[in-house]
């Protein structure tokens, strides 16, 4: 069962490490183990990506993970199966990341009911902006699944509107463009976080481009957490089914810096 307070607990009295992976990469049988390895390394919340044929917000690393997973014909039900397995062993907050079409196609009511049944706490939908969020908010609310809002460097005048209605946490996109490791993170993130903090207590976590401990340490001076995806997915790409130890150690190396 989902528990709306679980996401809150990830940010309680600490800076949160949020890890991302694409479910089914390299195989659906590895995904639960990788999630648990992140938790053992100190992750406070995990984003589980439902693979999609056309992940337009992703850079090459995560796009390749989507393709690997789809070559194995990973389905939405397979991803729910993974979450059910994780929930038998862990109470870590779990958030699904999915493009809207797989959710729409599955059927909104059936999808969010299943989220609740298996213990998903929230959802991030990169192609569902504020203007269209009513598409799912009623049904997500009905099942207690929190729709995570995104704020980007181009949000500007939209930040207040978005932050006011935010739930769970706010995903602050650090840079223009798509996901992927960057050497330099725009350090102009503070005004965005300040604008968010003026209107809401919802925690703000920064993602896109982060892969090193020093970058993460700098960002959490302002932000409530960091989100790391491509760096973890790159470890899975490199080490395949044997990636657990590498993931655990990597998460540990970042978490200590927060």
């Amino acid at each position, binding site marked *: 069962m989902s528990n709306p307070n679980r996401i809150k607990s990830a940010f309680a009295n600490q800076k949160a490490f949020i890890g991302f992976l694409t479910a089914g990469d390299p195989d659906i049988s590895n995904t639960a183990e990788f999630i648990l390895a992140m938790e053992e390394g100190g992750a406070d919340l995990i984003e589980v990506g439902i693979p999609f044929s056309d992940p337009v917000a992703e850079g090459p690393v995560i796009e390749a993970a989507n393709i690997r997973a789809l070559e194995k014909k990973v389905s939405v039900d397979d991803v729910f199966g993974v979450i059910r397995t994780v929930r038998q062993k862990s109470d870590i907050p779990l958030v699904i990341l999915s493009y809207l*079409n797989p959710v*729409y196609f599955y059927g909104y009511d059936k999808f969010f009911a299943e989220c609740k049944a298996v213990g998903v706490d929230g959802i991030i939908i990169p*192609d569902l*902006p504020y*203007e269209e969020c009513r598409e799912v908010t009623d049904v997500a609310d009905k099942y207690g699944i929190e729709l995570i809002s995104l704020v*980007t460097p181009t949000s500007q005048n*939209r930040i207040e509107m978005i932050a006011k209605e935010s739930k769970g946490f706010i995903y602050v996109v650090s840079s223009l463009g798509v996901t992927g490791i960057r050497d330099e993170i725009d350090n102009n993130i503070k005004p965005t976080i300040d604008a968010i903090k003026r209107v809401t207590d919802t925690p703000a976590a920064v993602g896109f481009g982060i892969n090193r401990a020093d970058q993460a340490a700098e960002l959490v001076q302002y932000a409530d957490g960091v989100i790391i995806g491509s760096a973890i997915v790159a470890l899975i790409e490199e080490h395949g089914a044997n990636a657990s130890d590498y993931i655990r150690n990597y998460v540990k190396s970042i978490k200590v810096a927060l």
Partner: protein
Amino acid sequence: MNNTSARFGEFGGQYMPETLMNEVHDLEKAYARYKDDPAFLEEFDVLLHEYAGRPSLMYHAAKMTQELGGGKIYFKREDLNHTGSHKINNVLGQCLLAKKMGKTRVIAETGAGQHGVATATAAALMGMECEIFMGKEDVKRQALNVYRMELLGATVHSVTSGTMTLKDAINETMREWCRRVEDTHYVVGSVVGPHPFPAIVADLQSIIGKESREQILQLEGKLPAAVIACVGGGSNAMGIFRGFIADEGVRLIGCEAAGKGVDTPEHAATITKGQKGVFHGMKSYFCQDENGMIAPVYSISAGLDYPGIGPEHSHLHDSRRADYIAVTDEDAVSAFEYLARSEGIICAIESAHAVAGLIRLAKEYTPDDVIIVNLSGRGDKDVAAIARYRGRNVYE
């Protein structure tokens, strides 16, 4: 010009990454300001007449009418426009709008290369930087168009993600727009994408329908019984349909690409075989699998090789205002050859799908009925591929 509401029935919307939402709203505001601005419209009108060569001809195909033995056939000759297709109407309007918005750079996707060539042309004319994204498969299929775009000063990027065709070119153009939005306008090539693109492109292409209506009333003193056009994303069809949607007696027919057949996996027949979904910023019909993954589609025609269709078409279909039929590669190639022999016109393989639709439906009409077919583009680009389809090794 009209209709800039965000939806057509339940279809359309703005399903875009947050990064682009302010930009999309800026475009909405700019378009709302200029679409009825007399100075802007005058400038656009001058470009259409003096640069693109409008109005395009309404040609009575007497020989084909006699041979097919049904309705009286007319072709709306968009193939005679500068750059060889209807695409020029849209790009001149969008580049003009982009300039008014202070943009100095345009980006665009292209399938067959027609929209890429048209965008590169408009960018050259208006002194804008231009980058075109084209699937690697299409770069191979349409090498000559790649060189044309380069001649016109554009940079062409070969897209190697996904199925390496039109949908992936759109994905990559959207990614590029997310990376660099400040000085850049995305010249969407069809009546697809998030609002306001479907409305803008339909408005800019509605000149086809406006002229057609005036021309046929002058020539025949009555409205046509049917209007036929090919449909990929659907901009040439929407352009000509716009002239007749309010005339309930005019049957509107869109011809989709059935590729190797709608009962095979190799087709791009979105209305015939697709299901409702949300992709590329819009709710519409899409070819997709049992998990909601966008399906790899196929057509001999690169311009129709797209897994979706514009939201206004989805609405015209659901409200039964327009009919959509599927045309195979084989029927399209036969129609391409037949039109060449019968009327001496080599049309685009995309447009040949509409001609095949005409051949199928002509007999349902009598000589008193007028049928207009939108000949959306010329076929020079397709000649070598058609020869190869027929087993002749011709290379450009």
